[in-house]
């Protein structure tokens, strides 16, 4: 492996800035982020382009990442359903959940046909074209909206996906060849998933951030970033130049507190002083601060104060009849809908959102019962289901022509990892390959179960890949997060050339230019 050479080669040639960024950026992934900054700032800034590398486009598109923190047990979210496969699943997971008819203590498998407890039964998902054609899978009962979205051609699934440096076999795993750093650890795998550079613990930028870098003017970036994060700063949206604008589920942008109030004495005095110190007019600002660091500091503060007010004015004034669930992720989804509705005011032709739900680290009580209604992961996924459905409803409400927004906004799930297939007695532990859902409009989504879902969960095998089990049902992914992200990125407008390689430095280990990496988007 020769991660460092491309940069050095680049440095020894006369290269265009664009090419340089690509190479250095590709490398930044593999080596460091400071290469780019060091070299660009030292020598290349004179040649900086005053326009984004890609765009403008003639359409609007948005990506919404739904991150399930803690490691969603996704083989219980999308389980096998065909009789033989289902019984192998039940066997591997220590039996049916204890409250089900025929369930056992410590069992964590959902039934498919429990006449006494219909609310436990998996919902059938018949795979369409693709590698799993002809098989049926079972969606966790609490995701009823996702089920109907699938049946109306507006949702799709990708199986056994995870962080990989390159295609990895059981033998590679045993020999520890090119494995992601910190497998099975929350922090590491959250970072790996988001950076798409799992071979480095030093990656602090993510693939969506690198997309935003390509679409953003480096000289005069948007005040409100095209990347909007709900509550959490995250790696996936962090780029070299573009960082996410963080908003709150309930209140929108983080306003300067007490501003511009004149009622309280403290705030009145402070606000008057700040108005004087950060003049609103650029000319006055420049005349006040001859020191450019002072001037930049003052304008950064002034712009931050005004941007938050403007953001909240733009998103808050949107009339929205759709009822969002009164949950944290429900309110997050509402903020997304409002920012999409305000896209023109915000000056956004492309938007990337990050919303999340925590609590999926189900070492115990994966399947928890609170009276007749299952708690635990079941209830949590139900919350997610209701939130993403409300977002779809809001998009329909907000679009002026059918499909205008629903076809141009793609919502996709992400998580640290999936969990061990083997039960630990009441839950499951950190693992690797995971199942995910993607939601969008019928013109966008190609509904099926994509990727290679293991054909036998008891033995954790797949005919094409053989043994996928590292131990206890920690599955080696058969599809990489890179392929998953690449398909989203290409749909978003990133050409399948050097641009995609900048966004996803390992992509060519999985996907040669041309065609679709997976096929889940049309």
């Amino acid at each position, binding site marked *: 492996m020769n991660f*460092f*050479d491309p940069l*050095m080669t680049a440095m*020894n040639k*006369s290269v265009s800035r664009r090419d340089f960024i690509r190479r250095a950026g590709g490398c930044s992934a593999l080596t*460091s*982020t*400071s*290469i780019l*900054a*060091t070299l660009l*700032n*030292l020598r290349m*800034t004179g040649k900086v382009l005053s326009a984004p590398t890609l765009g403008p486009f003639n359409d609007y598109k948005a990506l919404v990442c739904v991150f399930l923190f803690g490691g969603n047990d996704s083989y219980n979210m999308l389980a096998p359903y065909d009789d033989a496969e289902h019984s192998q699943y039940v066997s591997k997971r220590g039996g049916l959940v204890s409250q089900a008819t025929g369930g056992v203590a410590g069992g964590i498998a959902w039934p498919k046909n429990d006449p006494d407890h219909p609310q436990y039964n998996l919902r059938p998902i018949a795979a369409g074209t693709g590698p799993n054609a002809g098989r049926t899978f079972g969606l966790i009962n609490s995701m009823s909206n996702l089920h109907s979205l699938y049946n109306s051609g507006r949702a799709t699934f990708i199986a056994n996906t995870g962080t990989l440096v390159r295609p990895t076999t059981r033998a590679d795993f*045993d020999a520890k*060849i090119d494995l992601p750093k*910190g497998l099975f650890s*929350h*922090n590491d795998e959250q970072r790996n998933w988001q950076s798409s550079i799992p071979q480095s*613990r*030093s*990656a*602090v930028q993510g693939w969506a951030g690198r997309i935003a870098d390509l679409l953003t003017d*480096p*000289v*005069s970036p948007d*005040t409100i970033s095209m990347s909007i994060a709900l509550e959490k*700063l995250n790696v996936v949206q962090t780029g070299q*130049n573009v960082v996410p*604008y963080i908003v709150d589920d309930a209140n929108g942008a*983080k*306003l*300067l*507190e*007490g501003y511009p109030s004149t009622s309280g004495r*403290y705030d*009145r*005095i*402070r606000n008057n*002083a*700040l108005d*004087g*110190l950060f003049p609103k007019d650029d000319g006055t600002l420049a005349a006040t*601060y*001859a*020191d*450019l*660091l*002072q*001037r*930049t*500091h*003052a304008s*950064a*503060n002034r*712009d*931050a*104060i005004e941007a*938050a007010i403007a953001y909240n004015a733009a998103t808050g004034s949107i009339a929205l009849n759709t009822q969002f669930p009164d949950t944290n992720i429900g309110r997050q989804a509402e903020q997304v809908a409002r920012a999409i509705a305000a896209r023109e005011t915000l000056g956004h032709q492309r938007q990337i959102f990050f919303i999340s739900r925590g609590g999926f*680290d189900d070492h115990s009580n994966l399947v928890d019962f609170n009276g007749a209604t299952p708690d635990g992961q079941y209830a949590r996924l139900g919350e997610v289901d209701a939130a993403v459905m409300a977002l779809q409803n809001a998009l329909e409400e907000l679009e002026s022509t059918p499909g205008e927004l629903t076809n141009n906004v793609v919502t996709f799930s992400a998580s640290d990892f999936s969990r061990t297939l083997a039960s630990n007695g009441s839950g499951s532990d950190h693992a690797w390959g995971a199942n995910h859902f993607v939601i969008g409009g019928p013109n966008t989504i190609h509904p099926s179960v994509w990727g290679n879902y293991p054909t036998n969960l008891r033995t954790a095998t797949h005919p094409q890949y053989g043994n996928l089990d590292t131990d206890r049902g920690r599955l080696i992914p058969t599809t990489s997060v890179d392929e998953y992200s690449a398909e989203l990125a290409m749909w978003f407008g990133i050409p399948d050339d050097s641009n995609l390689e900048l966004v996803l430095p390992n992509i060519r280990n999985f996907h040669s230019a041309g065609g679709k990496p997976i096929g889940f988007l049309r």
Partner: protein
Amino acid sequence: MKYRTVQALCRGLLATCLLLPATTFAADFAASSFGELGEIQRKVLASHFLMRTTFGPTEPDVNALALRIQQIGKKAAFEEWIDAQLNDYPISSDWQTYEADRGRLWPLAKKMLNDMGYRSINFGKDKDDEQGVYDRNQWKEHAWWHRALTSKDQLRQRMAWALSQIFVVAEGPGVFSNRDLDSSANPRWLGLPKYYDDVCISHAFGNYRDLLDTMTYSPAMGVWLTTVKNKKADPRTGSFPDENYAREIMQLFSIGLVELKPNGEPRIGPDGEFVETYDNETITALSRVFTGLVFNNNKSSSDSFGAGTNLHAEMDVYEQQHDTGQKVAFKGRLVIPARPQSEANARRDISAVLDFLAYEHRNTAPFICRRLIQRFVMSNPPKYYVRRVVRAWDKNKTNPKQFEEVIKAILLDRVALNALRFKTVRSPSLGLNVIRKYPTERTRLREPILRSTAMLRAFSPYPDPSFLTISSDAKTPYYTPGGPEGTAGNQYFFIDNNSDGIGDKFAQAPFESESVFNFYLPDYQAPGAISNYVPSKSIINGKLVTPEFQIISPVTANQTMNHIRRTTVDSDFDIGNQWEVNRQVNLDVNLDFSRFYEDGGLLGAANVEPTMQQVRKFIETLDLALCAGTMSLSTKQVLLDVCQAELDRYNVDRVSEKEDLVQAIISALVLAPDCAVMP
């Protein structure tokens, strides 16, 4: 004519014409005599120097240093102050020894833990919950803040903070927030303060080669950059040694990516491009050198990472997993011969690399010196300044107190000392103007953490006595009354990075760098006016860099402003209430505003509105305390006008009303460019 001078003239003219001396600043500082004028000038110099060398000047420190400047002159007084810092506060050679007023974080964090225990009693059950993680992490953060705010060895603490931003190890790997005991019977989370002590505090006045040695064998670094259990190549499985540390020790901890001249400027090769410092063969060779490292007393081929984890003793070398073959690096400049398998030989291999980086490679001195200058003095040191500091570095390569000489070279260089100009104003009344001599080129955005500590230290902070509230367990209360305020002992400052605290707000906090690349990159350049500026020839690469701007975003800017508001709105450093088992405590730090009550200060007389004279004096006091006397006349006027307008329109005579005024003005000033950007 300098812009500031024009401005001063205009103000002066305005004052004279309108005959409103009370509402205008005729000069930065009013003086009643030439003697007082000299005294103010010395205080400004002292405050400015202490801004660089401490976590914030305090009034007594400024006065003491100003007096010495009067007695022996500026440079001699500064050197004497540095020497006192180097010599008067020795720290114990035993890493576990607690010292109340100086030194290491680990013994302080351990003492806090011993005194107060973990927060939640039901730990066993909720081992992985959020509260649990918080429990484990808080003490080391409290310890850092306590040292920054109260330690007498301020220069050592500042240098340690600077080193910690170069030789970065931070939260991230789960083991660092783990409360389980390691094989030294200490909680694993104490491994991070142990690293901070061993590498940064202990070597603050030490030697770079020694620091490299400690860092390389540090178990925390072993975990952070994955040298621990780094095995030699296994042809059977096709595995290779981990390249992480091999790469970063070069890229970030010693020589950097491109060849530098001794003045910090990159060399340009015959092809007109930069010359790279190392190639992939060098990385591969070095990765083979750093093989065989294992946790202390854990020489075994066992794969299980957890076994034998010890974050409190240096790593051992397990000779059977060390690559004994010949290594050729740096295009043959470094050749490490094949040696028979033994622990001593493995250590010899590692020493050969560290010796090369510390003694042979000419990049190391300019690479590290420029970063240190950025932490203390300015973002863009002129080449000749870097060159002089590099000379001090080179002369002391084998001096065990190398950094003492380097620090002196940084702080006493004529570029560092030549930042301010003073101008006596005679009309309409006697006064002193303080002028920043080199705006833009020789300034720096102060780190948000340092602005925060400086604001607190300026007002003699003390822990909130409400820590005394309800204590239902047998542990010592947080705050033991009786001692002098703001001193150590049992009166800890409870400031941490979580909760409503610093890390979320500033994107900067001790132990919380996102990665080994620190909070910001040394070469980050803010977009906009700065990137279009064409600096003088002495600036490296003809481009200004502004590292600290990298963590200012529309989000962090508002968060920072909100944090300062909460900090000042009740004259305490309010980080919210924390629930503990059976008790709620206010994690507040109180600020002492007594100086505004004394000597005719504006808070002094009850039920009397402050006079504009008092307000002017108040603003001058803040200038000296928070801006090293370099607040511009226009900023002063903004603050004065705001106060005037308030006094004209509202009753501001009760103490609480006047305190509002004091707090609001402090809040705005801490955010002002005058305070944020320091010459």
